[in-house]
């Protein structure tokens, strides 16, 4: 179990060594990172298999949890921890420079850490690590626009981080501990007042920058439109989900308050409306996808704001679906990056890419029996099960937004499949991009076929995630009163 820390440490080791290794031998440097990630994947898989339904706490350095940093291993954490190396491998920047590889490795390590950590400040450190790695990667393609976008993103994100730090400071001052399990014990007493909510609001907004939460998501279109498409896929698919995961962890473990979920719900609804509306008028594919991603993250927020197991189940379903679909769409969009108008007939020249795009778009809209439908259905059903007009309003907003989303996605699709566009201006899709997208599509379809076991698993994960007693018992074997 303790070896799980390797999943964080090894990519970092790889990141430190890759530039030097690449100086010695470029092929070695090229393969070093993916090799490490593959090893991490194998390692985590083994741990997940060994752990099964149980949970485990890992005290780093052997310091008993409230004092030292603890990793909390449960199915939710391992699911995302497994997703990290897998996604990073799938979206590995093969064509980049050594420093890009090493930054990508840093990103992977940070993301894994975010998924596993059970310590408030440690989460903050990994979050910052993730952020810094992504700033560098965004700007890596040397386009001035990308660098300007990265700078703007950095300013916003860093401001958010400072607010999050403020929130952590508030929590620490009030409780004197950073361990999530211990915070869970203390929260009903110490964080009961406005202070706890304020801390949550600050953390939500701070971490929400990466999670594309509503008012702090202005960076999304700029960055996704200028960043390399593999990175955009990684940011939209993986990084945003991990930020959401952190928020959800905090929500579940520490800040279990109706006001907190309400705040998330409101931000989510606004995000949906804003994102989908903006995407309706997008003029190029990558920004359309970026805005759509904002809207989808809004749905994720709304889903996670549902109380209890339903919320985690719905949120997981939506988040995992988006995790799978959006990167693939970004990969496909990479070669269709011009104005939408210029894409006329593009899919006819690249039928496989067109078909994949159609499949992902259908799933994104939520056409049964594709997984997107089930995710949306669970969310809607959960929303309607809640009393109060706000939840019903959220459901209506989701339905309307889905309509808008379908409208623009299919406007794009009809352009892609429509006639016209004589000159083959666009380069064909690379085999790598297409292969990756096909693999994602395969996963999506597998999700349809094995829907039943999949939902069973998700149910199990959700049940475990909301089980606070187990959480506390795992991380604090002898909790102090």
């Amino acid at each position, binding site marked *: 179990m*303790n*070896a799980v820390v390797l999943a964080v440490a090894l990519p970092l*080791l790889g*990141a430190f060594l890759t530039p030097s290794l690449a100086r010695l031998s470029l092929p070695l440097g090229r393969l070093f990172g993916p090799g490490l990630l593959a090893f991490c994947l194998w390692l985590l898989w083994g741990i997940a298999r060994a752990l099964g339904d149980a949970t485990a706490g890992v005290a780093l350095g*052997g310091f008993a949890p409230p004092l030292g*940093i603890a990793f909390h291993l449960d199915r939710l954490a391992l699911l995302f921890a497994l997703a990290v190396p897998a996604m990073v491998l799938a979206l590995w920047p093969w064509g980049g420079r050594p*420093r890009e590889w090493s*930054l990508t490795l*840093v990103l992977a390590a940070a993301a894994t850490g975010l998924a596993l950590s059970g310590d408030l400040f440690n989460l903050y450190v990994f979050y910052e690590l993730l952020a810094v790695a992504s700033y560098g990667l965004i700007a890596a393609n040397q386009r001035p626009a990308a660098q300007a976008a990265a700078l703007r993103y950095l300013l916003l994100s860093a401001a958010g981080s400072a607010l999050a730090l403020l929130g952590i400071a508030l929590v620490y001052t009030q409780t004197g501990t950073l361990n999530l399990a211990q915070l869970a014990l203390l929260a009903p007493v110490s964080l009961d007042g*406005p202070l706890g909510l304020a801390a949550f609001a600050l953390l939500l907004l701070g971490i929400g920058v990466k999670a594309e939460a509503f008012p702090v998501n202005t960076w999304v279109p700029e960055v996704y439109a200028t960043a390399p498409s593999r990175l955009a896929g990684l940011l939209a698919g993986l990084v945003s989900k991990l930020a959401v995961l952190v928020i959800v962890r905090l929500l579940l473990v520490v800040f279990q308050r109706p006001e907190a979920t309400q705040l998330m719900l409101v931000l989510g609804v606004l995000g949906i409306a804003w994102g989908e509306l903006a995407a309706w008028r997008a003029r190029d594919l990558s920004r359309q996808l970026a805005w759509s991603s904002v809207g989808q993250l809004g749905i994720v927020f709304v889903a996670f704001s549902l109380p209890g197991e339903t919320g985690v189940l719905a949120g997981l379903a939506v988040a995992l679906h988006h995790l799978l679909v959006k990167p693939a769409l970004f990969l496909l969009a990479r070669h269709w990056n011009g104005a939408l108008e210029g894409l006329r007939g593009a899919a006819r020249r690249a039928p496989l890419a067109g078909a994949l795009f159609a499949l992902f778009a259908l799933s994104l809209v939520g056409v049964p029996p594709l997984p997107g439908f089930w995710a949306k259905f669970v969310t809607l059903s959960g929303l309607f099960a809640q009393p109060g007009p706000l939840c019903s309003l959220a459901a209506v907003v989701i339905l309307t937004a889905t309509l808008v989303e379908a409208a623009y996605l299919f406007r794009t699709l009809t352009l892609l499949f429509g006639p016209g566009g004589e000159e083959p201006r666009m380069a064909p899709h690379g085999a790598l991009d297409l292969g990756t997208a096909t693999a994602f599509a395969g996963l999506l379809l597998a999700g349809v076929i094995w829907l039943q076991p999949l939902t069973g698993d998700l149910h199990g994960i959700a049940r475990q995630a909301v089980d606070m007693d187990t959480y506390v018992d795992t991380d604090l074997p002898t909790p102090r009163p």
Partner: protein
Amino acid sequence: MRNLTTLLFAAGLGFLLLVLAAGLPYGHPPMLVGQGILQQAPATTGAANIVTSVVLAYRGLDTLGELSILFAAAAGAGLVLGGHRRRRRPDPDGGFILIAGADLMFPLLLVVGLYVILHGHLTPGGGFQGGVILAAAFFLPLLGRPREALDHTAISWIEGLAGAAFIAIGLWALFARGDFLAPMLGKGVLGQLFSAGTLPLLYAAVGLKVGAELSGLLADLAATEARDP
């Protein structure tokens, strides 16, 4: 108008935060964790500086993350600035006072830096502080003689290996003790230089790493030509 709004908002924010902060237990922190660490740390780590115990042992992973952030920032800056590093028209030399001053300061800073690093577990200070001093030491001559660039290959190796060393120590602990970054080696006598097990080694790695990162960063920045207006 917008400025006014902003100021009002900011004032409101400050006020609200103050209202919240008024409820905080100032001067009587709960110290749930702190108390435990204060009691345990000397026995567990053998470091006189308990902050160092916290930084390198109890929260060693944070420190690793922190190092990685520095590394990522340096790598990012390198990526961003890469390819534009060689300026066409280097700045003139800094003149006698600057050059002489820098030459004078260099060994001094080097020694101070190393001292701060190596006594991190005993006195205030440590790898980060010392690393910054080291970086300053290497950067000062650059101010004086802009033509002489730092050796990027060497910096790259140092930063890579120092970071790797930190992790390697952690891994060593993992394999030997079953816990990543667990304290290793003998604890020695509290307050002596050779005490606190692996902590000084870790701090040395941190110091080298920080120094290398910062000098690399500074060198990169300095070597980038600002566009003429």
